């Protein structure tokens, strides 16, 4: 047996990570410091009496978690135990984030429910984008144009919402715009057999140009003329939103966030339990065999790409109609690419992609949340975390991810 196999390397990294983490924190925090995780009741203000206050001795908690990591690491090193690598790396990531959270709030308190609700909200465009990516890649089309589709959706949706004063029409327009632009990608990559990554990049560049042009020549004049509209309303679901903890996290959102929460299980069922899903997956794995079975590969790819464009357009509407009511140049700010990372993270499944999206949005929410606290780590490093984690995931330490076999290859009869 090799001295350094995968389990041993991961175990060593884990031990090192835990030691560094503890040393770093113990340099800054005294043993007496307490971190309070507050759980508020639904609809309550932060100043209201809380449902529950979890008081954790900051350093002791981190010490226990680090010891757990080190212990497991030693076990993995001695026995070279491969099977728990994914769980181990996962818990490393989780402990890292949790440490940052309670370190930042030591001597203070944070509203845990609000943090998690914010995580779900911020995960919306990433998860929807990832679903768009899954739809494309499962049917054999690589789509790195999601960023551009979102941007177009955000821009067109906002223009229509401004013109009509109705945000719902804006959402519809965003969906259609995503579908329209994605057809260019479909045309280039299915019909003209252009390299799909290049085709996607082209659409990203095009989207930046078109939306920038529309902003200066349509949106700004409209706004200058006094056109104002309303963002999408907050729609708490009656009864369900009153459930403690779960209510605020899942049942008190705006419409596009709900649509994401519905879309994830729906897509899981559609992809893995219906004939349509089987066909989609088969043209992504082996289009020739699928063709032999009588599936119209080209038509099916067009339909799936179009549907993905609709979903990406909806994700775009989140930016301009739900998160804020405005449109800025390049306001998607790389979320489309993160959606792709979430898709890979989730091994091309909708549920996994949601998990990946939550990972990103949690670190985002965390970073927003702790901005007010006096914290030793610079915010830039917390913002870097998801990207570093994505690279770690991509390298396959957590377990090899594998995409659809035929993704990226044009199909020729």
């Amino acid at each position, binding site marked *: 047996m090799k001295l350094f196999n995968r389990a041993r390397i991961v175990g060593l990294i884990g031990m090192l990570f835990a030691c560094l983490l503890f040393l770093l924190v113990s340099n800054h925090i005294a043993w007496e410091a307490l971190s309070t995780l507050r759980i508020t009741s639904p609809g309550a203000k932060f100043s209201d009496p809380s449902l529950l206050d979890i008081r954790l001795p900051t350093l002791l908690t981190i010490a226990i978690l680090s010891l757990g990591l080190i212990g497991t690491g030693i076990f993995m090193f001695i026995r070279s135990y491969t099977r728990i690598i994914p769980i181990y790396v996962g818990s490393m990531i989780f402990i890292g984030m949790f440490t940052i959270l309670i370190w930042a709030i030591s001597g203070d308190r944070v509203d845990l429910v609000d943090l998690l609700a914010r995580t779900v909200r911020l995960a919306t465009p990433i998860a929807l984008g990832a679903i768009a990516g899954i739809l494309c890649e499962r049917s054999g089309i690589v789509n790195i144009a999601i960023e551009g589709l979102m941007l177009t959706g955000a821009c067109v949706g906002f223009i229509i919402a401004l013109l009509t004063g109705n945000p719902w029409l804006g959402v519809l327009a965003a969906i259609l715009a995503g579908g329209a632009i994605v057809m260019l990608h479909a045309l280039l990559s299915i019909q*003209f057999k252009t390299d799909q990554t290049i085709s996607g990049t*082209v659409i990203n560049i095009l989207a*930046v140009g078109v939306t*920038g042009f529309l902003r200066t020549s349509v949106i700004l004049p409209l706004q200058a003329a006094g056109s104002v509209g309303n963002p999408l309303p907050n729609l708490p679901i009656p009864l369900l939103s009153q459930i403690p903890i779960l209510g605020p996290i899942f049942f008190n959102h705006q419409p596009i966030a709900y649509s994401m929460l519905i879309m994830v299980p729906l897509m899981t069922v559609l992809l893995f339990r219906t004939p349509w899903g089987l066909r989609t997956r088969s043209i992504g794995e082996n289009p020739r065999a699928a063709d032999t079975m009588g599936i119209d590969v080209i038509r099916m790819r067009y339909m799936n790409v179009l549907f993905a464009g609709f979903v990406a357009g909806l994700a775009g509407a989140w930016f301009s109609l739900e998160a804020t009511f405005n449109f800025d140049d390049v306001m998607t700010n790389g979320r489309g690419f993160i959606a792709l990372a979430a898709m890979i993270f989730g091994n091309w499944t909708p549920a996994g992609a949601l998990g990946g999206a939550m990972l990103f949005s949690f670190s985002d929410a965390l970073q927003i949340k702790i901005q007010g606290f006096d914290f030793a780590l610079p915010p830039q*490093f917390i913002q870097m975390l998801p990207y570093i984690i994505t690279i770690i995931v991509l390298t*396959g330490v957590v377990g090899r991810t594998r995409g659809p076999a035929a993704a990226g290859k044009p199909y020729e009869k």
Partner: protein
Amino acid sequence: MPRPTWPPTSRQPPERRSRLKCKHNVVSRSNNNQPYYSKGSVSMSTTPTARSARTAVNWRELLLSALVPILAIITALLIGALIIAATGASVIAAYSGLFIGAFGSLSAISNTLVESTPFIFAGLAVALGFKCGLFNVGAEGQLGIGAICAAVAGFAFKGLPGIIHVPLALLVGAAGGAIWGAVPGFLRARAGAHEVIVTIMMNYISIRLTDYLIKNTFRDTKASAPRTPFIQESAQLPLLLGPEFRLHAGFLLAIVVAVFINWLINRTTTGFEIRTVGENPSAAKYAGMSITKNFVLAMALSGALAGLAGAVTVLGVEHNLKSSFSAGYGMDSIAVALLAKSSPIGILPAALFWGALRNGAGLMQLQSGISINLINIIQALVIVFVAAPDIIRLVYRIKKVDSRQAVATRGWGS
């Protein structure tokens, strides 16, 4: 597009094939007087060495390979004119503004060349990646790292003569970019992590990292806005046309580097290995070439070039580094590489076109009131047409570059 193979690797040897499919073969031979294996397509940018080495410059082929990009540019400008007309502005005012802004005076030309310089380096970076079959979307990040490394080398070393300081700062910048680029190459080769996603992630890490370094570690405490201190005078790239023009020696360096990369790719063993790995990794492996070595090498070189783009901008134009420095060079460099069809020499006119559009945009807006963003649309359309040459062929009724005569004669017909 099927690539021509040399030597022919058909499953059947020619004699046997002609016996089996005699009639068909005779017809196809009499049509173009060429052996059957070169039928299909004349490769445009990826002309194999065997052919291009025979004649120094094949002008006809050069013209042919430039035809689609030129038609793409013309088509994009025509569509741009339609957009301008649709918004009610004057097309002539807009385009004359664009041209005069880019080439109207010596200072305009100097500024256009200055704008083009980073595009040459970054475009070369992406093109080199393409040669090895790698899509380097990370030019943006490598450029940022190169810029901060060059800036630090520029202000930290004191008392060096310019003849040492300038190359030193450039080298440090290139080294920073090379390290940043080598990581995705290594991960791709060893762990199979797709370089597109890894380089995109590395871009964001680079942006955060440089942001942190500029705001904290290397911040100039005397300045109110976050930026690094100014680089030493000895580290500044010399100006070529005197102090009233911005044109700096980085432009000459860019041309030299483009020629060098062209030589490296097309005339050296290293370049041959890189191209072979790019075209057919399994064949390269079978021939004894190391995939890992070539992936890492190509990405490191690519990163070094992108790093030089940042270094040259800092040392030649900005003389310090502000946060939010790079203005989308990453995406534009991909576009430039595509427009040039990954040819290192072709990068020069492509980057010049890009720089001219950027530089002329200001006057265009001034003269016609049309938004600068029109430039982005034109650029994107150019890339759409270059990436999918079939569209251009369809519009201009150019035949597939099967028979050579057809292209030259019918290209400008409609």
